[in-house]
């Protein structure tokens, strides 16, 4: 459905490499996530795939059409929601939707079944100007607009950035239902916790793909046992852990600190616990855990 082969993009006459020989493939009907921080090259990749940006090297195709030569055809077949929710702020919800429907030579009526579930949530505000909607509502409207012509591939560039947790959850539920309809979805996000909601993911950093697989496989590939530690004084604990010789890496992670050991012999855990107690830590909790995608990302970044 979507293939990239050694795609590169540079800016400022080659001084800045945004995308560095990226290759991956997205299968038909797949929900594929591009996970990485701002500036990793996600938007450049999306823009090249949606034909609004020319690659500096490599090939890419969407639905078997080359992104450079087949741009006219691709533009008819895909749906695109750029990073900034691209709505007309001074048009109402209804006007926006009608405008985008007409733009794609269709009507809201014709494809209403596809957007119905999402649209009913914003329908009560259909005479409101898009600029006056909350972030979550704008995001829903933008999704409706990107879907209105029943695209075969949907590109969503950071649809959940700046949107609160509740709206983010709702949004991912919507994507799952769209997937059922057979639409191939490419979504990018800087939020690592959203990775597990995709079928396959690519972890991207500084224009390079660090890993591509299912979230479960990426987690499984974590090279060493990972532990979570907690005590009463978390910030002091972090400092102390970093000074321990047996500790290989240690970083804060929510209510715990995550750490790996230099060697994973049976005695490292009790001895660390003892050392921490000596340093005055109370209520120490130390357990082995399954890594999250964020742990994997950190591990990959550091190597």
């Amino acid at each position, binding site marked *: 459905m979507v293939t990239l082969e050694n795609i590169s993009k540079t800016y400022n006459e080659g001084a800045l490499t945004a995308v560095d020989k990226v290759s991956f493939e997205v299968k038909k009907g797949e929900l594929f996530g591009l996970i990485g921080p701002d500036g990793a090259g996600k938007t450049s990749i999306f823009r090249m795939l949606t034909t609004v940006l020319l690659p500096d090297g490599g090939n890419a195709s969407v639905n078997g059409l080359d992104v450079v030569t087949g741009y006219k055809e691709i533009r008819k077949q*895909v749906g695109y929601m750029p990073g900034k929710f691209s709505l007309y702020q001074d048009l109402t919800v209804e*006007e926006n939707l009608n405008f985008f429907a007409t*733009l794609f030579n269709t009507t809201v009526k014709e494809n209403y079944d596809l957007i119905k579930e999402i649209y009913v949530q914003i329908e009560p505000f259909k005479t409101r100007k898009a600029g006056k909607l909350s972030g979550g509502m704008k995001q829903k409207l933008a999704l409706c607009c990107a879907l209105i012509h029943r695209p075969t591939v949907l590109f969503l560039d950071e649809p959940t950035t700046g949107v609160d947790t509740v709206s983010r959850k709702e949004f991912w539920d919507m994507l799952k239902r769209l997937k059922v309809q057979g639409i191939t979805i490419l979504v990018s996000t800087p939020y690592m916790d959203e990775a597990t909601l995709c079928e396959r993911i690519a972890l991207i950093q500084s224009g390079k793909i660090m890993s591509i697989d299912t979230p479960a496989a990426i987690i499984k590939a974590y090279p060493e046992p990972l532990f979570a530690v907690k005590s009463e004084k978390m910030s002091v604990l972090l400092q102390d852990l970093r000074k321990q010789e047996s500790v290989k890496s240690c970083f804060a992670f929510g209510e715990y600190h995550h750490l790996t050991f230099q060697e994973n012999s049976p005695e490292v855990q009790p001895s660390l616990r003892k050392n921490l107690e000596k340093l005055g830590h109370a209520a120490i909790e130390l357990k082995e855990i399954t890594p999250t995608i964020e742990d994997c990302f950190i591990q990959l970044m550091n190597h």
Partner: protein
Amino acid sequence: MKQFFTFVRKEFYHVFRDRKTLLMLFGLPIAQILLFGFALTNEIKDSKIVVVDYANDPASREITQKLAASDQFELQSSLMSHREIEAAFRKGVVNLAVVFPANFNSDLLAQNSAQIQVIADASDPNKANTLTNYVNNILRDYQQERVNETQLPYQIQPEIRMLYNPELKGATNFVPGVMALVLVLICVLMTSISIVREKENGTMEVLLVSPFNPFLVIISKAVPYFVLSLFNLTVILLMSIFFMGLPFEGSLLLFYAESSLLIIAALSLGLLISNSTDSQQTAMLIALMGMMIPTMLFTGFMFPIENMPMPLRIISNVVPSKWYYIIVKSIMIKGLGFSAIWKETLILVGMTAFFLFVSFKKFKIRLA
């Protein structure tokens, strides 16, 4: 086609929902007319003059009275000496002085001719010229009366007629200029800003990733501003006819056809600007600096082009509004037909075609 109309309608929504745009669109022409009509007029009223009357006889008094009665002059005092005049000029409290020599009336009676001295402050040469012309007119009037009284058999009187603009009204000059200015400004500014705004909002990306032909995006953006510009033009035309008392001698059809030509040239310039910038501020700056200033300077309605140095006169030829200005003056004021303005029209057509060609050529179907 339906796509196209939807797009045009959307553009109109943008215009009518944004107060700033509306104000600019409809406030600008009115403000310009008022500005040029009343504040920046080159008609001179109530200029301060002094009369130094060494004669103090019936003739000098009568002329002095006539000067005082005129709208153009405000008589300051009649009791100054030559030396005082010089001081008054230096201080700038006086613009013009009229000096009657002694024996003015008797000279006039005896020799049928007499000398009169008119001194003007020529630091503003245009103004000095205008003022001395006013004095000449008054003197001529006076002579005329005297000729009638004495009933000499005949006397040859030079008669100067001010062609097309007998009252020397500034309006005939500036109205076509304001038309050119408003059309160029509105079209260039509005198209470039409205396209760049889509880029800023990210909507341009979505428009590009759609089956809609990118060229149609541009054309459907141009249509509303084309229509609004014609509306603006009509407003200016009606204002100048009904409030300024300007004539409209020529063909209305020809006038609108020529105006459309300028509008298209301006729209393609706006498109060209929007291609080379991504921010509304930059677009606005380029449009204002690059369009307004040359239009004001080189159209000919503020500063006569004939008086400019050669290099500037040459530059003025590439400013489309200069040609439009000549065309409109010919149609409106002189009532001339196409045969008189075909050359200017041809130049304007050439420019429009060039701008259109370049802007379409440079139009990007991608982001970068």
